[in-house]
């Protein structure tokens, strides 16, 4: 990983200095071992603070939206799954490819610090990645942990090590598919539950929502200039969820508005401060799209057309669903 970081820095340095790009979008070292933050670097000197490690989990393609209005070219480093988002943005014309120099970088799964905390590890000072195991130094003694156990939810259902769009690749040999199995397994499980149990499950989860909008704002498919939830004339622009209905509505609509464009990057689940498995809502849509209209992976190609902007004469009738025949 350190070798890759070195190569990435070198590439950034080279392109900034030669003027091919005017800024670099990558991760900046924080104060703690795990708090690397996405950042734009504008001068070669600033690159000293750049990092790439197991905690650089943000999907940087979100920041490319509307960058096209600026008269500059941005170098961006994208992990394999992030390239799906970029492709999706390109196909929606929210990003212009000419303004971007995309370097695909290898990824062997990113670590979820919350999962580590949930294991009862407190006062995390240092984390050393040693192959499959992690050595953790804390204020209260040393701990070890199996890397796979604390990978981010999105990495457990890795879409693979191939980059969908790039100008150049660095360290792609590092990539390792970490997928543990079927990404729809949790959706399947919920579908098998009774309607009452499912309702109960989602009430428990969605009632935790504090309506911080992090899931919406981080989503690389949420690209409207003005969101319906921010429009005072839409009638649904509440600042906080006052009732159960508002909790349900916000999350149904949030997921619906990106259905067919969601590449399942899992950022929504990652950023939720309350740990709501929001990705499940998006995956339900993905699963339905696959079932009803044929397999589709958003962002696989730039040319692909979102299934919800398309139709077939023989499409399934919604009543088949509402009358409870023939799905699942």
């Amino acid at each position, binding site marked *: 990983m350190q070798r890759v970081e070195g190569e990435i820095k070198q590439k950034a340095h080279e392109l900034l200095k030669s003027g091919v790009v005017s800024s670099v979008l990558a991760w900046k070292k924080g104060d703690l071992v795990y708090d690397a933050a996405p950042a734009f670097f504008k001068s070669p000197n600033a690159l000293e603070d750049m990092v790439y490690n197991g905690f650089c989990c943000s999907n940087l393609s979100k920041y490319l939206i509307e960058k096209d209005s600026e008269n500059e070219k941005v170098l961006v480093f994208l992990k394999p799954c992030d390239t799906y988002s970029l492709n999706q943005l390109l196909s929606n014309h929210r990003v212009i490819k000419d303004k971007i120099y995309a370097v695909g970088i290898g990824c062997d799964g990113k670590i979820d610090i919350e999962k580590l905390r949930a294991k009862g590890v407190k006062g995390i000072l240092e984390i050393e990645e040693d192959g499959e195991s992690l050595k953790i130094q804390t204020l209260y003694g040393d701990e070890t942990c199996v890397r796979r156990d604390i990978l981010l939810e999105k990495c457990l259902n890795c879409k693979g090590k191939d980059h969908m769009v790039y100008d150049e690749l660095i360290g792609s040999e590092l990539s390792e598919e970490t997928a543990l199995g079927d990404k729809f397994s949790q*959706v399947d499980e*919920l*579908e098998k539950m009774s*309607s*009452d*149990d*499912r*309702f*109960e*499950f*989602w*009430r428990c989860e969605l009632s935790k929502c504090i309506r911080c909008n992090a899931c919406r704002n981080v989503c690389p498919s949420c690209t409207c200039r003005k969101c*319906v939830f921010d429009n005072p004339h*839409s*009638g*649904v622009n509440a600042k906080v969820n*006052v*009732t*159960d*209905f*508002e909790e*349900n*509505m916000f999350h*149904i*609509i949030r*997921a*619906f508005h990106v*259905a067919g464009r969601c590449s399942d990057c899992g950022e929504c689940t990652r950023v939720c401060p309350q740990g709501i498995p929001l990705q499940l*809502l998006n995956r*339900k*849509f993905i699963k*339905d*799209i696959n079932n*009803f*209209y044929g397999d589709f992976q958003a962002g696989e190609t730039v040319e692909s057309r979102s*299934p*919800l*902007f*398309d*139709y*077939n*004469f023989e*499409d*399934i*009738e*919604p*009543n088949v*669903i*509402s*009358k*409870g025949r023939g*799905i699942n």
Partner: protein
Amino acid sequence: MQDLVKEKPFKPLVVSFCCNWCSYAGADLAGSSRLEYPAEVKIIRIPCSCRVDPLFVLRAFQRGADGVIINGCHPGDCHYSTGNYYTRRRMAMLFSMLDFIGIEKERTRLEWVSAAEGARFASVMNEFVGELREMGENKRLGDIRCKE
């Protein structure tokens, strides 16, 4: 004494979105043909079934609807050629999601009713209201503030 006072029969409130070019005329025909359908069906005229935003459906439930039905032109007959095909996909997605969240799926429906099908309009409404009557009140997707 109290036992003798009969409970009021449940009258489900239904919001029926009707396409201007077909089912709205269908509803009209049902009326002028003196076909009966429940008065609790509230019709909202829309330019095309495709105009129905999923938020409309949710808002209807919020404001106390017990069921929402969207009526459009038969596939192939859309006034705007293809609007109803998109509706079909969208609503399939939405209904499936509502089911996934645990909202009774029988509360939502999409029907194709042409301008000539007054009888069909009335029978679809009767059937839908009948089903809802058996299911009872919408408790899962209403807004508590809009109740009482």
